[in-house]
């Protein structure tokens, strides 16, 4: 784990750390790295991954439309909205 990876991670996750925070997060990563290495003790080659702890299949719904909220309700908390749209700085096109 180096600063270059950290810089990339900040950019990828739309975050910016202070120098002091970077130092701390690097030590945090180091600590987690040790834990991750320790997982190597367990042979998982023949173990299937487990995404769902209470496995079920086919939790599906019928194709039916149901409208509950109005646009005004959905945009009530919008930092910026215009003419029924959410609004952001102009993207370069």
């Amino acid at each position: 784990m180096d600063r270059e990876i950290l810089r990339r991670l900040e950019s990828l996750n739309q975050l910016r750390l202070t120098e002091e925070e970077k130092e701390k997060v690097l030590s945090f990563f180091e600590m987690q790295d040790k834990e991750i290495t320790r997982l190597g003790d367990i042979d998982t080659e023949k173990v299937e991954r487990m995404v769902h702890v209470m496995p079920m299949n086919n939790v599906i719904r019928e194709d039916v439309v149901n409208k509950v909220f109005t646009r005004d309700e959905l945009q009530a908390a919008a930092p910026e909205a215009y003419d029924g749209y959410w609004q952001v700085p102009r993207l370069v096109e």
Partner: protein
Amino acid sequence: MKYETVIGLEVHVEMATESKIFCSCSAKFGGEQNDHVCPACCGMPGMLPIVNKHVVDLGMTAGMMLNCDINRTTTFDKKSYYYPDLPNAYQTTQWFAPVCVNGTVDIKTSKGEKKVRIKQIHMEEDAGKLVHDDWTDSTLVDFNRTSVPLIEIVSQPDLSSAEEVIAYLERLRSLLRFAKVSDCRWEQGSMRCDVNLSVRPEGSDVLGVRTEMKNMNSLSAIERAIEYETARHIDAIENGTEVLVQETRRWDDIKGKSYAMRTKETAGDYRYFPDPNVMPVVIDDEWYNRIKETLPDLPEVKAQKFIELGLTEYDADQLIQSRALCDVFEAAYKTSGLAKESANWIITDCMTILNKKQMTADMLSISGKALGELIKLVAEEKVNRGNAKRILAVMFDEDINPQEYAEKNGLIVSNDTGKLEEVVKAVCAADPKSVEDYKNGKEKVFMALFGQCMKQLQGNCNPQALKEALLKELQ
């Protein structure tokens, strides 16, 4: 040196469902901005995704139409990136176990027939729409399309020319529309295509540098873009005009050029992982067979069947342009037993009405059975053609029984000769001058008198019988 172009396509098709893939918002095209939106598809916390069953049905259908293997256990994964049209900052897609793999699509070009291999088809949610607004100098975000179900059809790099690409896309469009997976409307964005292209010396087995043009939305633009990119690549290889790099490019169809897109260094770092909120979809034999049974014949198989019923190749070809036309034809034929007439009524009369209504063939939704009954009424000379056309027009707006409607509105051909004679006598009595003229050898007036009789009868008579009755009266 001779070069060959190697092209692989990623085609996105919006599925023809009523509701979105993970929430119950309408998936219909259009509507006012942000009208088909709920907390889930505008990225608010607390809602959980539930898979729309019809999406899986259509995903499987697409795969079967494209000769794919269906993954009997298919799962959903999250793909993360930031963009204002992606309200959750992740797209739920299928990365690890897509619904379909290993298919083929047969295409025909001037160079003959070819099988294009399909790598996979996966189901995912669409992104929203961004409007770059000059008035406010901002970008406006509309989430109506967010979470509309898509399939992405990924081909192997088996295509080698614009002609092949067009043939492939047209074939895909025909198959998917036929199976009612999607309406595949380029102009509405329900069919879009990413083109991956590289060039190499003919016979070489090493691939050249690959560039990608994303979100192409018309066949003509795709054709021009492929020709331009191919020439650009060859020029770079032969003359060293530029150094080719693997990149995403934007096609400007007006300028007829492609441009490198500015991308972030982190682009493509999607951090896929299985969605813990969506359980696997397991397709058992019963489900698999149910979808298999609903598959339509391939268009050309259907056309052959139609020809065997007595249609011309031309008529059959017209009908297979749309599954809706085929469905109405088959039902009309089943009811009337008259193939040629059924085809004519659809290709000529129904299409005329659709055009007037500015509707496409796919939107033909009249009852084929009713059309068949109408055709029978005409064939049995119970309703004349003109009135039958009127009844057909009504069928576009109302669910009617043609026979009952004709009876109720006095559109049944009368076989009552007494009535016929009565009308003929009345018309002649009302227009003695024309009768006189006819008797004086002006035979032209016969048609005028005939027309008046027909009008009084509202067309509900056998023209031959009327002609005979009128001649008799004039003698």
